[in-house]
């Protein structure tokens, strides 16, 4: 039995108010979530407790207590205020998983700013789109990534400050400032911005089928949901050593790599390195990790190295394993029971929901392959695509829908209220995924309801890829779709028609791959390119991606009556 106790009892009796009370949310008029992740823990007598241990690829380590975290985030807040930064200013974090990334997240919020975390592997085009949309005023980065910003800086008139972490004596350009926590005055107490509970806090960009990526805007009171879901779904307790492998450039890395665990006063361990089964197991063994939150893609990569690799390490500290990002296949659940003696518990949520909404809970029977059941306080169902009414027949597939009103629900898409409104139908928030519910109330994921590609747990928009492909000198037209992949669930496949004068070749294929990887990100890079003479289009000239996608998935092509050459 986990922290949640009896699921059915909790589901019927839980009110969000209970989480607010546990947090003391609103204490002395304070609603700023950064306070609850650092200062409050200190006030409760745990200032000397380790907030996080950071380990770099070469094994170097840094440790920060909750007191250190409080002071360091104060210092950053003061530093920003000293530069004239104002509440509601957007401050982007564009760094690898270094300590300053985690600390500045709280520092920006303490100053009253809106944090805009972006995945550090983004290329300059992906970065530009998101900074331009948010009218970002400042960015924290490192020497490793500053060149990408330099290449687009002229096109970003709102970007006043580029803070380069640990720049040392490196030559910086105009508008760039060397930033070092050790090099600026320490601030023991800071007048934390008295944010309204509904004040914007975090802006996470996510991809859709059409148009540019959208900034899902969250508010300070999201912590009410992130706090209790971390307690009950991740099952963390103050005595745990918790490892969330997600990068804070994505929502999992902030909701459950910062807010959830620290509001619970947990010790986190952070590994800033690429994937390696051996190094991951070593990390768990060395730091005696008890709760591990990771992604199906990583689990499937671990599976490739087999249980023999697991047996080389003492992983007996592991108590609870959770997965997020894409549906966890039954084989992975069964494998983890064999490898670690316990299953991975799948959890479902998305950037827009801000916190876990459907999950498998400790103490509940795990049905391998199922998403689990709704979190207490969440009304979830599947609705009929046409009537928009809940489906009552077990096993019948519909759209996953949530009753609006949970604390961590996004409040808008930045600069795109129209798109935000389109997500709500018949008083339901429509997640964009299809699923069914069985006779026991368990949800079963079926697939996306749009053309967005879920690769390695991250959503990639086909439109953004196709737009970038058109910038390549050889590409006349293109379509990007998801194709099945045994490790990443889906990978990007591009269908490309070349301009005259270019012939399909391995050279062109590699050139296109690297072009997209650098412009957008490794996630958006087509893992396969199929050269075609032309693409299927409707009579109005719109590319019919669904035909191409259906072919990749071996599905029925469906209605082709609008096909141009049919």
């Amino acid at each position, binding site marked *: 039995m986990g922290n949640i106790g009896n699921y059915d009892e909790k589901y019927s009796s839980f009110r969000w108010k209970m989480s607010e009370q546990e947090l003391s949310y609103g204490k002395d008029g304070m609603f700023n979530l950064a306070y609850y992740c650092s200062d409050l823990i200190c006030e409760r007598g745990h200032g000397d407790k380790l907030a996080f241990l950071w380990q770099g*690829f070469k094994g170097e380590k840094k440790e920060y207590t909750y007191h250190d975290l409080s002071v360091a985030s104060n210092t950053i807040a003061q530093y920003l205020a000293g530069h004239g930064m104002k509440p509601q200013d957007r401050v982007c974090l564009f760094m690898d998983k270094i300590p300053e990334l985690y600390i500045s997240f709280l520092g920006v919020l303490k100053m009253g700013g809106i944090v805009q975390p972006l995945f550090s592997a983004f290329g300059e085009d992906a970065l530009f789109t998101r900074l331009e949309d948010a009218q970002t005023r400042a960015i924290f980065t490192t020497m490793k990534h500053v060149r990408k910003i330099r290449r687009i800086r002229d096109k970003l008139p709102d970007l006043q400050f580029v803070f380069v972490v640990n720049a040392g004596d490196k030559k910086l350009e105009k508008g760039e400032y060397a930033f070092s926590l050790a090099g600026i005055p320490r601030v023991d107490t800071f007048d934390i911005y008295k944010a309204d509970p509904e004040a914007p806090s975090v802006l996470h960009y996510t991809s859709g089928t059409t148009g540019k990526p959208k900034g899902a805007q969250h508010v300070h009171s999201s912590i009410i949901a992130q706090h209790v879901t971390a307690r009950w779904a991740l099952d963390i307790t103050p005595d745990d050593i918790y490892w969330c492998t997600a990068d804070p450039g994505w929502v999992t890395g902030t909701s459950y790599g910062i807010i959830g665990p620290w509001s619970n006063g947990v010790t986190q361990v952070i590994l800033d390195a*690429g*994937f*390696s*089964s051996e190094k991951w197991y070593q990390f768990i063994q060395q730091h005696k990790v008890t709760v591990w939150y990771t992604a199906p893609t990583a689990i499937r*990569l671990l599976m490739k*190295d087999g249980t023999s690799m697991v047996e080389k390490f003492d992983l007996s500290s592991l108590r609870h394993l959770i997965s997020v990002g894409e549906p966890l296949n039954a084989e992975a659940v069964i494998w983890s029971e064999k490898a670690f003696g316990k299953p991975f518990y799948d959890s479902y949520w998305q950037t827009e929901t801000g916190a876990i909404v459907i999950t498998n809970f400790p103490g509940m029977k795990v049905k391998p392959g199922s998403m689990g059941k709704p979190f207490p306080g969440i009304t979830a169902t599947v609705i009929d695509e046409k009537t928009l009414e809940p489906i009552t027949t077990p096993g019948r597939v519909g759209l996953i829908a949530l009753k609006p009103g949970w604390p961590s629900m996004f409040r808008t898409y930045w600069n795109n209220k129209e798109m935000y409104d389109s997500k709500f139908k018949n008083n339901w928030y429509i997640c964009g995924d299809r699923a069914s519910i069985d006779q026991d109330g368990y949800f079963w994921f079926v697939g996306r309801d749009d053309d967005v590609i879920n690769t390695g747990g991250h959503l990639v928009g086909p439109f953004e890829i196709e737009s970038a492909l058109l910038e390549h000198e050889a590409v006349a037209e293109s379509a990007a779709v998801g194709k099945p992949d045994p490790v990443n669930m889906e990978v990007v496949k591009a269908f490309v028609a070349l301009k005259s004068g270019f012939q399909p070749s391995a050279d062109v294929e*590699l050139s296109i791959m690297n072009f997209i990887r650098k412009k957008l990100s490794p996630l958006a*890079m087509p893992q396969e390119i199929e050269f075609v003479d032309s693409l299927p289009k409707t009579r109005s000239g719109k590319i019919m991606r669904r035909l191409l996608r259906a072919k990749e998935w071996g599905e029925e092509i469906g209605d082709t009556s609008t096909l141009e050459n049919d």
Partner: protein
Amino acid sequence: MSEDLKKTIIDYVKKEYLEEDSEEDVDENTPLISSGIVDSFSMVSLKTFLEKKFDIKIPDEKATTEAFDSVNNIIALLTEFKVT
């Protein structure tokens, strides 16, 4: 081990996966995947480069993160395809 082969791969990794004036250096023992220089998604472009350059086809089961984790590991993999 052919020095030319080693140089070809190192030069390609530096050119494609590091920024122009990056401080990071790459030699035959530098971890590539586990260090994050080449992530698991970008590994596919490195594989495509090797296949194109040496006119081989590396099966997916051989293209593991371990096999691509250093230039030395890649050279060991290539020798299986008689590339030296």
